[in-house]
């Protein structure tokens, strides 16, 4: 679960990491009253989870109240990567020089957490030369003072900046460990003229599987109503913008079906994994859910029956396709009891194909490319 910038900064504050004075605004009038507290000049920052906010114009420096009024209206109407602005963070403008980067993140290949840092942070840090990044492994029990100092020394930091960097790195690591984050990132970490440091942005990704140990985070409702519905049934669901809704049992199977749809010149409207034990009621719930996707013109159901009984799937399909309105359903059913499932579906209006490729071609043909 990714936190909004303002949520991440609230965590930073709790762990003693310095952040600029700020106030969250849910609408334009709140934004203007927040200016009264924060003062001018100020930075208005659209609160979205999608990347590329800066390039999309989601962060703006305002010097006058008139500017702020105009920009707040624009930012509340802004979408970044299709995601609407939920709120604005109104923040005091910070006079600073150098912008650094620091994060604690899981290195999957090395199977350990690492601390990463660079003297050149800011936008698009990922695409810069890797040579500028330095890293140290983070033991499960936490980063030692000496390892934190070492990282600062490798960046060539000295004096006040070096001491502050070490202190912030250790706090960030403790936050990452105690809150069980997959990523805790400060970018940029700005250097003031006096050598002190301040976290100008936050990117915090929590380990979803550890939320049971952190109930304070698990209350946030999903942003997308269909995602909420999917979560209620325990489906893995990703909304996409094509015309073929893809439903199957197993993450890898659905992923490979998405590729077949793309190969056939189509575009998927969603990824929906029913999970193991796809019983009749779950199949029904999944089909009713994908019916709510405005872009879907066809539904492709790809089932490999192992422990899942394909006759259960067939019965679920029959129950839902008789309902109106319903987009056409195309099925590929293979595995345990497939002949019985096929017999059940004959005359139901759901064509059943022997291979995923055939079902994909039919669904893409119906939905259009």
């Amino acid at each position, binding site marked *: 679960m990714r936190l909004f910038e303002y949520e991440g900064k609230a965590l930073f504050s709790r762990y003693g990491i310095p952040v600029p004075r700020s106030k969250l605004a849910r609408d334009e009038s709140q934004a203007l009253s927040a200016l009264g507290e924060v003062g001018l000049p100020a930075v208005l920052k659209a609160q979205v989870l999608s990347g590329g906010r800066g390039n999309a114009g989601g962060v703006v420096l305002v010097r006058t109240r008139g500017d702020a009024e105009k920009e707040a209206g624009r930012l509340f109407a802004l979408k970044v990567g299709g995601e609407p602005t939920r709120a604005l963070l109104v923040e005091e403008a910070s006079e600073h020089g150098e912008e650094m980067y620091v994060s604690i993140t899981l290195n999957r290949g090395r199977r350990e957490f690492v601390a990463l840092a660079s003297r050149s942070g800011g936008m698009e840090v990922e695409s810069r030369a890797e040579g500028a990044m330095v890293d140290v492994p983070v033991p*499960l029990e936490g980063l030692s003072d000496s390892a934190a100092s070492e990282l600062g020394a490798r960046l060539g930091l000295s004096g006040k900046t070096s001491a502050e960097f070490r202190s912030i790195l250790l706090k960030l690591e403790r936050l990452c460990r105690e809150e069980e984050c*997959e990523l805790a990132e400060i970018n940029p970490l700005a250097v003031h003229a006096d050598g002190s440091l301040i976290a100008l942005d936050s990117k915090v990704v929590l380990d979803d*599987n550890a939320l049971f140990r952190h109930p304070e985070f698990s209350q946030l409702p999903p942003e997308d109503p269909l995602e909420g519905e999917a979560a209620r049934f325990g489906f*893995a669901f990703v909304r*996409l913008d094509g015309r073929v809704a893809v439903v199957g049992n*197993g*993450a*890898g199977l659905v*992923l490979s079906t998405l590729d077949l749809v793309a190969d056939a010149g189509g575009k998927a409207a969603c990824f929906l994994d029913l999970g193991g034990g796809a019983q009749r009621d779950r199949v029904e719930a999944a089909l009713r859910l994908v019916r709510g996707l405005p872009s879907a013109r066809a539904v492709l159901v790809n089932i*490999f029956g192992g422990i899942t009984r394909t006759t259960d799937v067939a019965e679920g399909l029959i129950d839902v396709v008789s309902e109106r309105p319903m987009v056409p359903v195309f099925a590929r059913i293979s595995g345990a009891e497939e002949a019985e499932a096929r017999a059940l579906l004959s005359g139901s209006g759901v064509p059943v194909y022997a291979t995923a490729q055939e079902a994909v071609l039919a669904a893409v043909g119906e939905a259009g490319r």
Partner: protein
Amino acid sequence: MTFEMPEKGDPVIVQGITGRYGSLHAGLMLGYGTNVAAGVTPGKGGQVVEGVPVFDTVKEAVEETGARASVLFVPAPALLPAVEEAVAAGVRLMVAITEHVPIRDTLKAIRLCEESGARVIGPNTPGVILPSRRLKLGIMPAPSFREGGVALFSRSGTLMYEVADALSKAALGQHVAIGVGGDPVNCTTITECLDWAAAADEVRSVVVVGEIGGDAEERLAEHIVESRFPKPLVAYIAGRSAPKEKHMGHAGAIIYGDYGTAESKIASLKRAGAKVATTTSEIPALVSDAR
């Protein structure tokens, strides 16, 4: 670090056997011919599930049966303690079916394995099957698997079944199939599985089913070259059309920037000399070509 698979008839315990899932699959494993000798659920000792005696602790189950392998169906918060208990009781191979395990618990399990020489496969895995030994330590549908010389390693469950089914129908049976798990970090990596396959005489060729996210396939490709892996290898990568920064079902199936893309994995594996299938249905033909 290497590991050993149980032999035919070796006793196996099931941790979490009294749950709905644990009892269902204990029965299916028994039906396949696997010697499920004991179950463990704290507080349920003395019960019998599918004809299998249940104990309160792994220690008692091990003392009673001599089992050195365990299949775990415990809830996610209980997985790390269950692994610790099993290792302390002398279990050497644990197959962790449990999904939604916190990443730090998995990392702690890996460290415990490194210290003790024990082995965990998973978590979030369909398990391990060795058809010639009638050994099924997991939840995979047995009819899709046949005895033969292919070693099949997969990050995905259903795709492993689908590919095994296609191989079996093409008379390409399997010596072993291992699901390494769909999480960002696997206690046993595909690279470690490859070393196991290199040393196993029964394995004549390898099929790897990978997917987007992480760099396990890139590391595998490097290892194929460095270790001069001596057997033909066919790979398939799911997720060529997946969007970035979205978890595609598995916690591990996510692309960040250029990290974890299918293109990178396919290119690395091709450079290492692997045959890469574009779709799962192409795999059997590539395997028979390779032999």
